[in-house]
C-alpha cells in the first residue's frame, strides 16, 4: 500500500534507520503519509517513538535511509525551507522568561520575517488565526510561564500552526493533559488535518484515542516496527497485548477499555447479568480479588466485553438465540458449586428468559442470592 501513495506522499520514510551516536536503534522504517492524514506512533515507554520523530524533524541525524518531504530529500533542504513545510511540538519544557503567549506563538513566523524579526500585519494575522484555531485568543496577553498545562499545549500547537507547515510532528502532545484537554487537543488536530490539509505525525500513549483519531498506526517496539497499518488492521486484542507485553490484565481494542488481571481460584459466585448490569459487579469482584463465573450472556451483550477478561468462566449463547442445552446445564452446574448467586437486576424479557430460570434454579437449590454490590 506504500508504493501507490509514493507520488502523492507529503512525508515518506524510505528504509530509515534511526539511533543515537551512530548506534542503530530502529532499522528500516518505511512508511508514507498523504496530505491531511494523521499517523500515530504507539508503543511502550522507551520504544523509540521520540527517536523516530526527532529523526523526521532533523533534530537527530538519521543513520541511514531517507526522509522525503513533499517528494524532496530532506537532507538537501535548507533550515528555513524545511521550517516553512514542517513544524514541531516537542516535549522539551522550556519556560522563556517574560514572554507573552502571543510572542511565543509569533516565534513560529521566524522563517517568514526579515532580518530583525519584525512582524508585518500579515504575520500578526497568521498568529491571530493560529491562536483562534486552538481557542487560545483569550490568553494571548498572558505570560507563557503562568498558564496551565492544557493551555500551554494549545499554545505550542498554535506556534506550530502559525508556521504554516504542511506537516506537523508532535511528540506526545497529550501528556500531562486531563481527559477534557486530551479530547480537545486531538479534536483540533483532527480538524486541522481534515479541513486544513495538514499532515500530522505524532506519538501517543493513549492507544484508545490513537485508534479514534489516526488514519495510520505504527507500532514501535524497541528495536523494530512491530506493525504498520490502518487502525482496523492494527487494533486486534492480540496486537496491543503483544506490543506492550501485557501479561496481566487486558485491553479491549473495540471499546478501548482496560481491565486489570482477573482473580483466579475456586469460583465463589455465579453472576447473572446482562445489558450492562453485570459490569459494576464484575469490577467490584475483581477489586476484592474474588473469583467468579458469569452467565448467561448473549454474544451481543455489552457485559460480555468485561466478563470475558475478568470472569474465571463465562457461559454464553449466540446473539439473539436461546442457549444450547449443554450451556444451560453448565450454568446450572456452576451455580450448584458456587457459594452464592448474584442477581444484577438486569431487565428480563422473552429473549433472556433463561436467566430468570437460573435465578429460580438457585433459589430452589437454597443458594444465597445477592442483589446489591454492598452485600458482597
Amino acid at each position: 500500500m506504500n508504493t501507490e501513495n509514493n507520488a502523492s506522499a507529503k512525508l515518506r520514510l524510505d528504509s530509515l534507520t534511526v539511533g543515537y551516536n551512530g548506534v542503530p536503534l530502529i532499522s528500516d522504517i518505511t512508511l508514507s503519509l498523504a496530505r491531511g492524514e494523521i499517523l500515530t506512533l504507539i508503543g511502550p515507554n522507551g520504544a523509540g517513538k521520540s527517536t523516530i520523530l526527532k529523526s523526521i524533524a532533523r533534530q537527530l541525524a538519521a543513520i541511514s535511509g531517507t526522509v522525503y518531504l513533499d517528494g524532496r530529500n530532506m537532507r538537501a533542504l535548507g533550515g528555513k525551507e524545511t521550517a516553512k513545510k514542517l513544524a514541531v511540538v516537542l516535549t522539551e519544557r522550556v519556560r522563556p522568561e517574560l514572554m507573552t503567549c502571543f510572542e511565543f506563538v509569533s516565534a513560529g513566523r521566524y522563517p517568514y520575517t526579515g532580518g530583525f524579526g519584525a512582524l508585518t500585519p500579515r504575520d500578526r494575522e497568521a498568529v491571530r488565526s493560529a491562536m483562534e484555531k486552538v481557542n487560545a485568543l483569550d490568553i494571548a496577553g498572558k505570560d507563557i510561564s503562568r498558564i496551565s498545562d492544557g493551555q500551554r499545549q494549545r499554545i505550542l500547537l498554535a506556534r506550530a500552526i502559525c508556521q504554516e507547515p504542511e506537516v506537523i510532528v508532535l511528540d506526545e502532545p497529550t501528556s500531562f493533559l486531563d481527559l477534557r484537554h486530551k479530547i480537545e487537543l486531538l479534536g483540533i488536530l483532527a480538524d486541522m488535518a481534515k479541513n486544513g490539509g495538514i499532515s500530522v505525525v505524532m506519538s501517543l500513549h493513549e492507544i484508545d484515542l490513537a485508534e479514534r483519531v489516526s488514519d495510520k498506526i505504527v507500532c514501535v517496539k524497541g528495536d523494530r516496527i512491530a506493525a504498520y497499518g490502518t487502525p482496523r488492521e492494527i487494533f486486534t486484542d492480540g496486537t496491543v497485548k503483544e506490543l506492550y507485553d501485557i501479561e496481566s490484565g487486558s485491553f479491549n481494542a473495540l471499546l478501548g477499555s482496560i481491565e486489570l488481571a482477573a482473580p483466579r481460584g475456586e469460583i465463589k459466585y455465579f453472576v447473572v447479568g446482562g445489558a450492562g448490569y453485570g459490569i459494576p459487579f464484575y469490577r467490584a469482584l475483581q477489586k476484592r480479588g474474588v473469583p467468579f463465573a458469569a452467565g448467561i450472556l448473549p454474544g451481543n451483550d455489552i457485559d460480555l466485553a468485561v466478563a470475558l477478561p475478568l470472569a474465571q468462566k463465562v457461559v454464553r449463547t449466540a446473539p439473539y438465540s436461546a442457549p444450547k442445552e449443554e450451556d444451560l446445564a453448565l450454568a446450572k452446574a456452576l451455580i450448584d458449586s458456587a457459594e452464592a448467586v448474584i442477581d444484577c437486576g438486569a431487565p428480563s424479557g422473552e429473549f433472556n428468559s433463561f436467566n430468570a430460570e437460573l435465578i429460580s434454579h438457585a433459589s430452589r437449590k437454597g443458594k444465597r442470592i445477592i442483589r446489591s454490590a454492598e452485600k458482597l
Partner: protein
Amino acid sequence: MMKTENAANNRNAARCCAVFLAFILLYAAAVFVSVRVGSVQTTAKEVLHIVFTGDDSNSVAYNVIWKIRLPRLALASLLGGALALSGFLIQTFFRNPIAGPFVLGISSGAKMFLAVATIALTGIFGKMPLSATVVASFAGSLLSLLLVLLFTGRVKNMSVLLVIGIMISYICSAVTDFLINFAKDSEIVNLTHWSLGSFSGATWQSVKISAAVVFAALVAAFLLSKPMGAYLLGEGYAQSLGVNVKALRVGLIIVTGVLSACVAAFAGPISFVGIAVPHICRMLLKTGKPLVMVPASFMCGAVFCVLCDFAARMLFAPTELSISTVTSAVGAPIVIWLMLSRRRGNEY
C-alpha cells in the same frame, strides 16, 4: 478578543519608550555631574564652555576635563555597556540568569597572562608599561575564549560548558597564584591593581580602541537578536525554525568573549555589572526580547558604570575605591532582591 493583545502591546511599547528615555536622561545627568565634580571643582558654566568651545586650553580645568574626566567617562560608558551586553548574551546562551560574562574563565586567563607578562617585563625593564598590560590581558582572554570555543562544538549539554569555564578559571588561577608565590611584591602591585578594576588609566587612545571593538560587537549582537529570540524557546524549537544553533552558539560565545576581553584589558575584571544589569533591564522592561534587551542592556550598563565610577571617585575622596568594590556592593544586593521577587512572581 485581540483588543487585550493590542492593549498589552501598546502598554509594552510605552513602557519601553519610558525606560529608554529614563536611561538617556539619567545618563546625561550622570555624565554632567561626573565631568563637573572632582578634586578640581568646576562650575556648570565652565564645563559647558570648555566642552563645547574648546577654549581655555591652558587652564587646569581644561586639562582635567579633556585629558582625564572625559576619556574616563567615555571608557566607563563603553566598557559598562560592553559588560552588561556580554552578560545578557551569556545569560541567553546558557538560559541561566546567574551566568556572567566572566564565567567562561576569560578574566582568569587574562590574569594569568598578565602575571606572566608583568613578572617577565618588570624583570627586564624594571616596570610594566600600560600598553603591555592591555595586550597581555587581551591575549589571555582570547586564549581562554579559544579554549571554550573548542569545547563548545563537542559538548551537547550547555551546563557542562559552564562547568568547563569554571574549571578553566581554577586552572588559570592556580598558575597565577603559583607565579605570585615566587614574585617580588613590587612586581605584582600592577597585577593587584588590575584585578580590582579601575577606569582611572583611561586615555583617548584606549577609548578609540575599545569603541571600535565594542561597536563592532554591538552590531553583531543586533544581527544575532532574531535567532536569539528563537533560541529562547529552546534548542529544539530554534532548530526547527531554521536557526543554525551551532553557529548561533559560536557567535554568542565570540561576541561575549571579545566584549569581556576588551573590558578585562582596559579596566580589569569588573564584577557584577554583567550579571546585575541585564536583570535590572528585564525587570524594568518586562520583556526578554533580544532586540529590545541588546540596546537596553548596553545603555543601562553605561549608566550603571558611570554612576558607580563616580561613586568610586567621590565616596572616600581623595582615596579612590576600585570600581569592583562599588559595583559589587551595589550589584549583589540588587541581584538577590531581583531573584527573590522573581521567585515570588513565578508561582502559580
